[in-house]
């Protein structure tokens, strides 16, 4: 296990939080040194990504980090400049057709022929997919709750309905893997919650979901595993629980005067960062062993310490921690 502390992390290195070797059959997506350049700009920079089977995997990063470009390469929408890709264990682009036959995907916002009904749009994709896709149309529409509106023109659908129709279109492949690019964009809270429900139910069925997003909170609530991408590079990947646990230790301190407490803590050499949150102060430490010393420091300065306990870092904390280190390392 590799910590994300001050020691080993540096730009250009992908940190795998959980180094249990996974068999190739256990990986639905595997890339090695995958690179995409647009002229002089590198959008995806030597990405090594490993997505285990049967999880909801968040591909998390700010806008412009290269998330969509990576997805487009995996789906054969654009070619890679360098590197290797495997989808469902099959090499790309050599076995593209065979691999994609078991993959459903929504790239950017779901688009349809607006002059056709929802059902007709699915019938067209079923014709393109061939096989038993046509027989899955009714079930797919029912699954996403669009049976009643299936004969209406898609041009009359709301964004949420189009998103659900996009999911139905994915289901025509009876997919082992669903790749969803920024699926929560533009959805209202009810739509987001509904979408989260879809994702979890697909995972329970044994399908794998790769979900790209810049919304930390959504990835944390929806996904089991995550890769954090920054400026075209995957900087860390692993389970969300591991990611939370593997960061620098954090303690929550509550005193009667949080401002003074934050000032005292910030001056200690073993405290990397202090954030005040109402009556509580979160202190990110470089070493958990200094906690008694911090307690003495506060008490010695006349502070009444009401609470002093380990704090569970959020994904957002970890994301900020990592990106802050990247900025400092650059």
């Amino acid at each position, binding site marked *: 296990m590799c910590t994300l502390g001050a020691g080993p992390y540096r730009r250009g290195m992908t940190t795998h939080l959980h180094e249990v070797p996974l068999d190739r059959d256990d990986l639905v997506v595997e890339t090695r040194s995958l690179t995409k350049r647009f002229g002089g700009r590198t959008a995806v920079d030597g990405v090594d990504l490993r997505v285990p089977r049967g999880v909801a995997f968040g591909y998390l990063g700010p806008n412009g980090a290269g998330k969509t470009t990576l997805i*487009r390469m995996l*789906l*054969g*929408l*654009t070619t890679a400049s360098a590197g290797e890709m495997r989808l469902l264990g099959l090499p790309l682009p050599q076995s*593209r*057709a*065979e*691999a*994609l*036959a078991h*993959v459903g*995907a929504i*790239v950017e916002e*779901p*688009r*349809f*022929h*607006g*002059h*056709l009904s929802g059902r*007709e*749009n699915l*019938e*067209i*994709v*079923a*014709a*393109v*997919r*061939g096989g038993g896709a*046509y027989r899955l149309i009714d079930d797919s529409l029912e699954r996403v709750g669009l049976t009643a509106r299936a004969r209406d023109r898609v041009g009359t659908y709301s964004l949420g309905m189009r998103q659900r129709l996009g999911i139905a*279109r994915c289901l025509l*492949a009876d997919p082992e893997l669903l790749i969803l690019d920024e699926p929560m964009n533009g959805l209202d809270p009810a739509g987001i919650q509904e979408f989260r429900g879809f994702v979890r139910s697909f995972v329970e069925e044994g399908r794998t979901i790769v979900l790209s997003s810049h919304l930390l909170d959504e990835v944390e609530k929806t996904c089991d595993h995550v890769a954090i991408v920054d400026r075209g590079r995957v900087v860390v990947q692993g389970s969300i629980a591991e990611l939370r646990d593997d960061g620098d230790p954090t303690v929550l301190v509550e005193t009667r005067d949080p401002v003074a407490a934050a000032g005292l803590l910030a001056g200690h050499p073993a405290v990397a960062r202090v954030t005040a949150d109402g009556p509580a102060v979160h202190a990110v430490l470089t070493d958990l062993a200094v906690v008694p010393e911090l307690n003495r420091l506060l008490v010695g300065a006349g502070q009444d310490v009401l609470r002093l306990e380990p704090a569970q870092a959020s994904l957002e904390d970890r994301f900020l921690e990592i990106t802050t280190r990247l900025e400092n390392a650059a």
Partner: protein
Amino acid sequence: MSTLSLTPSRSLVAADLVKLHRRRGLVAVTALLTVGAMTITYGIIELLHVASPATHGPAGGIVNLGHGAWVASALGAVAAAIVGSMAGVGDLEAGVYRDLVVTGRSRLALYRSRLRGGLVFLLPFVAAGYALAGVASVLFADGHPVPSVSLLVTTGLWALLQVTFYYLLAFGIACVVGSRSYTIGVLLGFRLALTPILASISAIGIVRELIPGVALQGLTPAALGDAAQQGPTIPMSTAAIAAVLVVWALAAVVAGAWRDTRRDA
């Protein structure tokens, strides 16, 4: 839409056909440029003839078949440009092309299917329009020479060839440039404005024979006389005409396929 549960390639074509048939505007414009144009043309001529037989001849006969064939080919080429460009980049412009590509189906198969689907959509309109011209040229002959079955068939094939040729050009060009409006503009400009101008400039010599409109005119059934002509006819061998048309059509279709299979979807 049970037609989509056919063999894989036929169901693909059926799917592309549905996309076009459900576009009411496209259906209306195509019908207007083919069946509608022919109905209006023969209807007006016959009405004028009925109203004033002394000054207006009948709508039927060989000469008016030539006029009808000219209308069918000229407006058919306009319909071909519209339908060809729609079949070529309709998916791309609707943003669904990438969703079809990610199914794993080869881009070439999608290309072939769209090409065939557009033709299956277009040609029945052109054939129906020409059929009206054929029927009118016999029914309303009123003493004028009636076209033979052979002339009716060859004229019909000539009109279908023209429309098919311009359809292939439109389809290929649309796939190359990725835009319907540019394709229609370029093709109509070339067909309706540039071709007659270039064909009338004898100083450019053999270059005129490389213009598809000139080559197509060389195939006009001789029995129609000047009625189906647009500009001067330049003598060309049938082999040369065929070579010019095949090279143009192949170049457009191959370039379109090349671009379609390589574009970032």
